[in-house]
């Protein structure tokens, strides 16, 4: 049975998070999950929009939901955890606050759209683990990642604030998925700790300290690679390792990739099609550990 979803790629998927988009599409192709890109989707608003404007940010976010409703009949799935949380938040506030709902709909109507609140917003991790199931994934694995020790880094916004599909403090869906492809998820108690997000730009000492903790824990527990569910987390933990090393006198060189890249590799997709060449920290050692 083919599962079908409206797909919200998110702004990062066109830039720093490109590999997430490419690998997600490749993985869904292998798993018989059909992704229909949301036509003319706009930015979800991200945390920045909420910081400046409240109603507008709901409106910006809601346009996507209205388009999804028009397309109809499918859940809307996002890959970026921040996009997921913001779209889900808009949905929830619509349901809880009728005045807000009315106001936003007024604005949507000015644009010739409307939203009734009936679109389910999902995270790609949730879809793969809960709709498809780890067993189905395991059946399609062609490269079992048997010797690979993986740090499952969920980040903040996949399971917070609502913990809709997994526990807000110690989720396990990604761990199960990693086991399904034969890898060993390491003990990673910082799995939902913040990477610093946008602070890497505006106050990098704070973000570097947080990333240092994430990298150190991964290293101390023997991780070969860290997988993430969010483009911002991926950027922070991967691309700034040199800066972390400079600030803390460490020598981290841990490969980081999107969980869909690792999953895709296990499903037999070749590394180019998973955009693995886009990684800043080289991943050859990781791939070498896996039987071809």
């Amino acid at each position: 049975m083919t599962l079908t979803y409206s797909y919200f790629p998110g702004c990062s998927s066109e830039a720093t998070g490109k590999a997430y988009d490419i690998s997600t599409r490749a993985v869904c192709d292998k798993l018989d999950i059909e992704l229909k890109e949301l036509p003319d989707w706009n930015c979800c608003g991200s945390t920045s929009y909420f910081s400046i404007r409240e109603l507008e940010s709901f409106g910006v976010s809601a346009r996507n939901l209205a388009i999804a409703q028009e397309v109809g009949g499918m859940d809307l799935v996002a890959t970026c955890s921040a996009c997921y949380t913001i779209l889900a938040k808009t949905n929830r506030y619509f349901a809880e606050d009728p005045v807000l709902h009315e106001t936003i709909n007024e604005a949507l109507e000015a644009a010739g759209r409307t939203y009734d609140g009936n679109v389910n917003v999902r995270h790609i991790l949730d879809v793969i683990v809960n709709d498809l199931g780890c067993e189905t994934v395991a059946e399609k694995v062609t490269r079992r990642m048997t010797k690979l020790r993986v740090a499952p880094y969920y980040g903040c916004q996949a399971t917070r604030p609502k913990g809709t599909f997994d526990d807000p403090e110690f989720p396990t869906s990604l761990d199960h998925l990693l086991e399904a492809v034969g890898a060993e998820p390491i003990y990673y108690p910082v799995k939902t700790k913040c990477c610093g997000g946008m602070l890497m730009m505006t106050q990098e000492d704070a973000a570097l300290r947080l990333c240092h903790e994430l990298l150190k824990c991964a290293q101390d527990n023997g991780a070969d690679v860290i997988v993430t569910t969010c483009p911002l987390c991926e950027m922070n933990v991967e691309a700034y390792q040199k800066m972390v090393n400079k600030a803390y006198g460490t020598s981290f060189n841990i490969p980081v990739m999107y969980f869909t890249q690792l999953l895709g590799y296990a499903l037999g997709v070749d590394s180019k099609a998973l955009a693995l060449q886009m990684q800043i920290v080289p991943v050859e050692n990781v791939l070498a550990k896996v039987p071809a």
Partner: protein
Amino acid sequence: MADEKIAVYFCDCGTNIAGKVDVDEVVKWAAEQPNVTVAREYKYMCSDPGQDLIKTDIKELGVTRVVVAACSPTMHEPTFRKAAADGGLNPFLLQMANVREHCSWVTEDPVEATEKAKRILSAQIHRLPFNEALQPIEVPVNPDVMVVGAGIAGIEAALKLADAGKKVFVVERDPSIGGHMAMFDKTFPTLDCSACILTPKMSALGKHPNITLMAYSEVTEVSGYVGNFKVKVRKKARYVDTDKCTGCAACTEACVVQKVRSEFDVGLGYRPAIYIPFPQAVPLKATIDPAKCLTLSKGKCAKQSCVPACGPGAIDFGQQDEQVELDVGAIIMATGFELFDCKREARYGYGRLANVITSLEFERLSNASGPTGGHIVMKNGEAPKSVAILHCVGSRDENYQEFCSRVCCMYSLKFAHLIKEHLPETEVYELYIDMRAYGKGYEEFYKRLMDEGVHFIRGRAAEVSDVAIAPEEEGRLVVKAEDTLLGIMRRLPVDMVILSAGLSPRRDAKEVAQTFGFGCSANGFYLERHPKLEPASTMTDGVFLAGACQYPKDIPDAVAQAGAAAAGALTFVNNPTVKVEPTISYIDPEKCSGCHICVGLCPHAAIQFNAEKEVAEVIEAACKGCGVCVAACGSNVPQQRGYLDKQIFAEIEGALAL
């Protein structure tokens, strides 16, 4: 009926009614209503002179019906009905017209309020001619009492009742009585050894001639009503003949299965498959755990070494559960609490991080008869050099239990003291939000702990982590919290963390309450009749509450409440009969078609089907007069005395007559 002489009394209630309603106008109007002989106004009808008015008018004017327009019947119907009775009139020939809560207190406009008062009064004036002189129902009372649960509260209630000369049946689910108190080390604030003060009471209960103790037993069914409860008890099979067993414990040493996690030691220690829960157990009898005994669970224990070890030959693998049925006049519930499941607070690491323990686990570590012989040690057997005690785990928290669990601040202080006593060099940190030291000697105890050098940090712990970011944190537990008094973030590296978990209602509290015919509060504990004035009773006559099953409380309060529950039970069982309100349902056997509908609908199981006559019959003492059967019957057969259809219709007509 047309010859009734109705007396109308309109109460000013100070300014509560007279300040809004034009009383003069209403009284003048009332005097002209049909059947009204006299209409009077009085400032406070509930006062003695007010009541005297009623008595005098009955005697001198031959009044046959009375309506008192005043407050709510909940407040004073009993008062005025008693006055009528004292005056020689059947109390059920008096009605109240609620012109306060239903009128003067809730209507803004005085003109509207006056009009409404007239209508309310008119309704009662029209109804009264149809009132009947009902006689109260008296039922005999069984003088025996049952106490369910034998922790400190149940034990205290049982002893009080037994000393008062009553026969008491005590039903306890565990193999021994004693409850949670038997597990504690010392008790606050006196630091009495818990077992030392509890065991004399346990022993007294076990020996009391008036007490029949059924330990390792459960109540399966309760029927009946106050004074006449029928309780079915299942006495679980111990697979040991308790008449022969002397409690010598030889079997426990001989058993081949020695490593079953001990419930009494909260999983920290082990017991054999045949066991006595603790040395001071009452009754001092062995019990076989059927899930762990190789003979009982798998059918193969080659040695069965318990059998030869037992001198009196008490082992009996073929023993069956025993069902008994008991008749009692009152029941006291003392089923206690459970500790909040700390696994739910994942951020504190209970179950994931070694050396994060719960309060009950600490009691067992500290207790000299516990699994570590009273040595406070970590999982690796070493003594901790620093301990953090985290308050409010699972309590005062919208995400778990909203209520404050009352005893945790005090037991946390007690733990701090015990640690300092066992390990004087160990640093102790108490992380709290508020320090609730409300009881006698409690504030002084708190001061004592401050004096003992415990570090008090006002800040609720955010999490317990095993991820070190500084060298002194390596290999230790790190407690993260904001020290709110200093306004700084703190990372406390400690060796052990004690979670001061809250008290939760037992997981089967709802089912148990339903079995016994009462309800639970929103927070899951048993519901008391009135939170201030009747904390030891339930809404169900004859069923009382004692101890933590009603709400978390410390030992002094549990004991006090147990005394109150015992006294409450005595108010029923000390009398040969109990009066039951006659405003109950009556089913005319001539009219009943025997369709059974009302039988199943009765929420108090007060209707039984008479198979011989093929009609439904009301069990008078059990009927609470809720009216469900009256409404449900398709043939309109059940009538509620005091609320007959013609009375209700007359009220409606009276209200609309203006």
